[in-house]
């Protein structure tokens, strides 16, 4: 097959394509599908509006949420250097620091005062929470 010129191409196209005899136009089927497309579009619009409304209601609520209250009460901690004697300079971690035990005071003093063990310190000392 080869084409000589534009006129030849037109004639061949007419011959080949006009030989196609399509069935009757499916008007009802096309209309039905068209209605489905319309319904899909409407649904899309409604869903989009719902999302926008949700964002409109939700975002200000999230932005205006009151900050969580932070507790200012600090635990009172006593640190003991070798888990036997309370170290020098051991203080109560509070607004008004004050020594809570002397160097030679045994650890049991903290316990006797009603303290409870809290955590091991990195330096090897022990922390006691005062009641």
């Amino acid at each position, binding site marked *: *097959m*080869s*084409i*000589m010129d*534009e006129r030849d*191409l*037109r004639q*061949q*196209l*007419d011959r*080949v*394509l*006009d*030989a*196609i*005899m*399509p*069935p009757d*136009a*499916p*008007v009802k*089927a*096309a*209309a039905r*599908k*068209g*209605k*489905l*497309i*319309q319904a899909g*579009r409407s649904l899309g619009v409604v869903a989009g509006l719902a999302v926008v409304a949700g964002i409109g209601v939700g975002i200000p609520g999230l932005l205006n949420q009151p900050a969580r209250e932070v507790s200012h009460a600090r635990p009172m901690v006593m640190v003991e250097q070798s888990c036997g004697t309370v170290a020098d300079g051991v203080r109560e971690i509070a607004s008004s620091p004050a020594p809570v035990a002397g160097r030679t005071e045994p650890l049991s003093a903290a316990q006797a005062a009603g303290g409870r063990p809290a955590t091991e310190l990195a330096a090897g000392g022990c922390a006691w929470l005062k009641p």
Partner: protein
Amino acid sequence: MDSRSEAEFAEFMHGRWPALVRLGYGLTGDERLGEDLARAALAKAYASWPRVLRAGDPDVYLRRIILNASLGKVRRRRVRERRPGDEPEPETAQLARVDDDRPALVAALMRLPVGQRSVVLLRYWMDMTEAQVAAVLGCSVGSVRSQASRALASLRVGEDVAEEVLL
């Protein structure tokens, strides 16, 4: 859509249906695919009928839908047929079949890239001007001219050379 618009649409559809199916066939090389394209185009036209009428030229709208849909079908077919590790196939071979029992001209059209095929059908079968083709395809007149020229050159070369290109 009211009953008057429905009747208007039905009349329009009856008038355009054969040409749309033939255009679809020319684009895909398959009569059934051509009917599918025409049906889908008419359904889309129905869904936007008032807007299509307002735009002024329903035929341009329909042709554009069919051309875009045929491009989509070519792309989907390409994705479906490609296996992992396969070399990508040239676009010109997408709709060409080895066991081709179609008319030689249709088989030759299927070897053209879809853009050139569209230009050939719109320009030489539908007798549209270059400007009208450019409007339907959404490209420049210069692009239409060059695609038409390349398509004609390919079709002039003939079947033997085209088959060599495919192999």
